[in-house]
């Protein structure tokens, strides 16, 4: 029980929507970080490639500007090249030239290449030089110096301050763009989660709207993913229904089994009664016959009640004539009323009165109302059955001249409730429950009230077709 309460506590249950949104956001954040790193890396590579192209071209141009002269070597610095290097931003440029390993000109502490180039094909490398990140390129050229062929190595370095800044800047703007996308994505994520979850909610609404006795399978259009849930739900409803059906069959069967022996007991008791003159025995036999009558009436009403519940479950309204139904029920009850010299007067049943309803349920309701009236009417009394039409309702009023009601009519409708003034009249107290249930299944009303004069008025109102 505790576990169930905890499970059903909304603050403890998992929200699918929250989970979907969180997953979406986490994924998006990972994407933003990934984008930042990737763009930074790509931008760095791109800037490196362009720097290498310029550095390579520049170092080649410098190397090509070296000429052999009689005094040795002559270097003609290509200024256009340096201005090109300068155009790449606020970078510093370093160079060095060695001949056969001897420093000829430039910065003599400029780092040596990791691998000696052996021709005009530039070799590139990175180095830390005078506190700055340096990109270097070097080429080698064989020159005649003093009639000897000597290797001339030309190295050219450039700082990467501006380049790195550009790469970082690019990555950062990419990250900002991604972040903006993330912020924009949040409402989209919420909407998407909503849309994904809306079939669940509509299914819940369809199931939630059902009445307590509606056990038809749920026929709701759901997405494929919800089909297993719907199948499980319908399976459960089916099992519940089978259990109910079984209970109803059992009630029918039990009532049947009880009734046949009861009828024999009753008949024998009545015969014994007619053959006995001893007052004490007669009193006992009368009590016995009464008790049998009471139990069979209760069995009937339990059966009626089961029938009403069953038919409410699968309520199928058909058009029927209330006048004809009232007439038929009055006809069936008349012999019982006659037995007690009670007259039944019928009014308003000459014209057809079309309504939508379940004929058997209505028959049960009318029979119970009239049974009650016959039971509680005064001896030699009068029962008036009146069918009227007004405000879109067909109203059957059954008026008796009996002892009336001593209790609040509302409490009498409860199952097995009986009035305080019923005296010796037998009854199970189910009759009014049955009538009330039939009325509500038809979206109608049932009310009991005291008449101004003596007696009770039972009013059953049903919507007209």
């Amino acid at each position, binding site marked *: 029980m505790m576990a169930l309460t905890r499970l059903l506590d909304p603050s403890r249950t998992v929200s699918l929507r929250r989970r979907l949104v969180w997953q979406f956001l986490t994924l998006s954040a990972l994407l933003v970080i990934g984008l930042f790193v990737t763009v930074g890396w790509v931008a760095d590579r791109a800037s490196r490639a362009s720097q290498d192209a310029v550095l390579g071209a520049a170092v080649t141009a410098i190397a090509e500007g070296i000429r052999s002269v009689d005094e040795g070597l002559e270097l003609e610095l290509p200024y256009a090249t340096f201005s090109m290097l300068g155009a790449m931003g606020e970078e510093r440029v370093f160079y060095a030239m060695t001949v056969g390993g001897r420093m000829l000109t430039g910065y003599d502490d400029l780092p040596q290449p990791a691998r000696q180039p052996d021709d005009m094909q530039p070799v590139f490398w990175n180095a830390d030089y005078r506190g700055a990140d340096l990109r270097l390129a070097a080429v080698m050229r064989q020159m005649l110096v003093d009639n000897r062929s000597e290797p001339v190595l030309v190295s050219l370095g450039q700082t990467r301050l501006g380049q790195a800044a550009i790469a970082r800047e690019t990555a950062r703007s990419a990250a900002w763009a991604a972040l903006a996308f993330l912020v924009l994505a949040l409402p989209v994520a919420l909407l998407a989660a909503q849309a994904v979850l809306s079939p669940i909610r509509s299914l819940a609404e369809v199931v939630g709207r059902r009445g307590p006795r509606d056990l038809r399978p749920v026929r709701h259009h759901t997405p494929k993913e919800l089909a297993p849930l719907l199948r499980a739900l319908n399976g459960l409803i089916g099992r519940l229904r089978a259990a109910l059906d079984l209970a109803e069959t059992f009630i029918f069967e039990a009532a049947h089994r009880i009734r046949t022996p009861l009828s024999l007991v009753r008949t024998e008791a009545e015969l014994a009664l007619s053959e006995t003159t001893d007052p004490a025995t007669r009193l006992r036999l009368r009590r016995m016959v*009464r008790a049998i009558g009471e139990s069979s009436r209760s069995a009937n009403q339990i059966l009626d009640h089961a029938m009403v519940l069953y038919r409410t479950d699968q309520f199928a309204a058909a058009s029927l004539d209330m006048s004809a139904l009232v007439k038929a029920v009055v006809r069936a009850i008349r012999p019982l009323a006659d037995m007690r010299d009670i007259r039944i007067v019928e009014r308003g049943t000459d014209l057809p009165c079309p309504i939508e309803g379940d004929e058997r349920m209505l028959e049960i309701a009318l029979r119970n109302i009239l049974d009650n009236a016959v039971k509680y009417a005064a001896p030699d009394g009068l029962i008036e059955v009146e069918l009227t039409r007004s405000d879109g309702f067909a109203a059957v009023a059954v008026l008796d001249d009996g002892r009336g009601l001593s209790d609040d009519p509302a409490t009498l409708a409860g199952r097995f409730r009986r009035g305080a003034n019923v005296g010796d*009249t037998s009854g199970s107290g189910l009759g009014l429950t049955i009538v009330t249930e039939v009325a509500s299944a038809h979206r109608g009303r049932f009310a009991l009230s005291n008449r101004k004069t003596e007696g009770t008025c039972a009013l059953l109102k049903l919507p007209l077709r």
Partner: protein
Amino acid sequence: MRFLLVEDSDELARAVASRLAMEGHGVDHAPTLADARHFLETVPYDLILLDISLPDGDGRDFLVRERAARRDTPVIMMTASASVSDRVSTLDQGADDYITKPFDFAELQARCRAVLRRRDGAIDSRRHFAGFVFDSLAATLTVAGEVRELRARELRLLEILLSRPGQAYSKAHLIDRLFSFDEEVSDNAIEVYVGRLRRKLEGSGARLETLRGVGYRLIPE
């Protein structure tokens, strides 16, 4: 009246038959549908009391065949199942009425009378006694050309007394047969109806006599 009782429970049939005999009706008991068919071929009946579940078939099918053959002897179905569908379907199939087991004899009697009354005309229900004519189905008493209406209990009382004129019936016996057992009645309740019947019988040449300590009887004056 002659009744055919189709019922497979021997005990119940015997009890019902003896009770109906007490009312002055002749009752034949058929425990199966085959027996019922046999009885119907040989004797005309005023009313058939038909059980639904019988050893050799369903009473409703029997009823349907009877009606299809245009035999319209009134039928009251006796059903133990009492489900509404059963009751409605029996009426649809041509039964005149139904009664649910276990039944009150007074109710059975009342239903038989109601059914027979509806079939009025085919049956001569008149009876001459002293100076009056009693029609049990029309519920009238004709005295010197004057038609007097009888209420249900007056009629029942007269019926009982007329079944054996001159015989004394005790108050208790009359109460058993006049009132349903579901009603709480005192022994004096019968006096009201005796008084009413006496007034209706005035000038008829018959006298409803009180025998102190014994009961009542009907004798010609």
